């Protein structure tokens, strides 16, 4: 009896914690939307964040995309070789990279690189009372700190995904020739004939949404840090886990909506 009650209490506590987090993120979204509607946004902070989140992430995204293209060629290659359908390689890997694997893998890398970094930065600002300092100077932290980050992450994710798609297809061509002996021209023809513009658009819409999700989760966990260095580490950990979950679940919903 007592054991059962304790179990129930633990379950209830867990559910309440999750509700607390989801509610906090929803409120944050509302604040960000309201600030944007009133046009309150720090332009210089936006440019600084775009550089810090977009430009600096280019190498890791480019490398990830290159290997993603290679992996997709290898995986399609197993089928292609069995059915001797070398003409389908460009279609298979292009479609997979544009629609699913590209946005998800680049989104996860972006969450690790930028989202975690952002949570750590905001968390450190909270722990060292810089956010309270801003409030004391009558600067609202939402338009000054959060809105530029959300916009910067969405924009950066869009640009990085365009770059990543191009590199992944290029990598796919190179690895397809090296590992399976498919000529560049036949790969490209199969790719260009079968992959539609809409496939690219679906991936880009997903990417922008993932950027938004990463921004909201990382800002929420960064701003709710408690207790020194240990708290910052835990907040970063929670932020990347929440971002990964949100990416996977929203990917499902977006796939169903954008056929």
């Amino acid at each position: 009896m007592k054991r059962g009650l304790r179990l129930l209490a633990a379950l209830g506590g867990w559910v309440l914690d999750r509700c607390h987090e989801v509610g906090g993120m929803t409120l944050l979204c509302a604040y960000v939307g309201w600030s944007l509607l009133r046009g309150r946004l720090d332009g210089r902070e936006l440019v600084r964040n775009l550089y810090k989140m977009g430009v600096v992430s280019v190498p890791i995204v480019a490398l990830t995309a290159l290997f993603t293209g290679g992996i997709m060629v290898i995986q399609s290659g197993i089928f292609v070789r069995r059915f001797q359908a070398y003409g389908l390689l460009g279609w298979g890997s292009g479609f997979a990279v544009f629609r699913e694997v590209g946005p998800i893998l680049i989104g996860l890398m972006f969450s690790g690189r930028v989202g975690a970094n952002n949570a750590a930065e905001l968390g450190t600002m909270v722990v060292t009372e810089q956010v309270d300092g801003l409030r004391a100077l009558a600067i609202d932290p939402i338009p000054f700190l959060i809105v530029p980050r959300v916009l910067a992450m969405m924009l950066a994710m869009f640009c990085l995904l365009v770059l990543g798609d191009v590199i992944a297809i290029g990598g796919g061509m190179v690895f397809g020739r090296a590992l399976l002996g498919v000529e560049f021209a036949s790969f490209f023809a199969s790719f260009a004939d079968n992959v539609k513009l809409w496939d690219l658009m679906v991936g880009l819409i997903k990417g922008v949404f993932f950027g938004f999700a990463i921004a909201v989760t990382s800002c929420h966990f960064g701003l709710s840090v408690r207790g020194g260095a240990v708290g910052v580490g835990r907040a970063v950990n929670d932020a990347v886990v929440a971002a990964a979950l949100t990416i996977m679940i929203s990917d499902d919903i977006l796939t169903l909506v954008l056929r």
Partner: protein
Amino acid sequence: MTEPAPTPSALAAALRLGRQGAAQLLNLGLLTARGALRTRRPPGELWRQLFEVGNRSLLFVMVTLGFIGMVLVFQTCLQINRVTGDLSQVGAEFVKILVHEFGPTLTALMLATRVGAGIAAEVGSMVVTEQVDALRMCGVEPVEYLLVPRFLATLLMTTVLSIFGITAALLLGALTAYQTFHVSFGVFLDFSKLHAGDILTFAVKCLAYGAATPIVSGFCGFRTHGGSEGVGWATTSAVVSSSFVVIVLDFLISALALLTWQAGG
């Protein structure tokens, strides 16, 4: 805001730093492997870490992999409907690719964010609060005390969680195929195309990811310096490096498998 252009001396310094880092990483890996072979370690610590890595990540891994399974089946069926309309082979191929590619890799990516970040955050905060130095003062090797139990737990639990994740992805994938495209469970859950080669790739990938994630994140954690900002940096770099290592290992092992034991399909 603008970075200075890399001069030759800056490049040389970066190279030297990279070489030093590689040497330290190798050293850490060897220390961990040596510690893992010894039987003497703090009692109960391994069980605690197995719980921490395994049970605590189970729900996360099953939810994410389940959703991925739904998406992949949906996209594949949609494409095949557009081309041939014969959905009878989707299940068999899905089982195959899930076992040798998506199952272990996505589980490992999820564990890199969940467990890798956790290791770096814990070890990093112990470094900045000088608990690691205290361990060393007491004559305890910190790598052996802190990292080896986490290494063993992750090594084992990557395989276990992959199996759970694959199960979740298969079940939800089969449900999607049944609900949306009317493929019956019997046709979808077809294991006839799963060969020994796929199982071998699965095992090699799980072991490689499970060994790489804790070592890379532990390396980032032990390198932490300077307060809460340092811990944040360590955690970030642990997530990025271990995810990247997983992707590179996936590419290398898949290429090796394609050229050798999976050459026949």
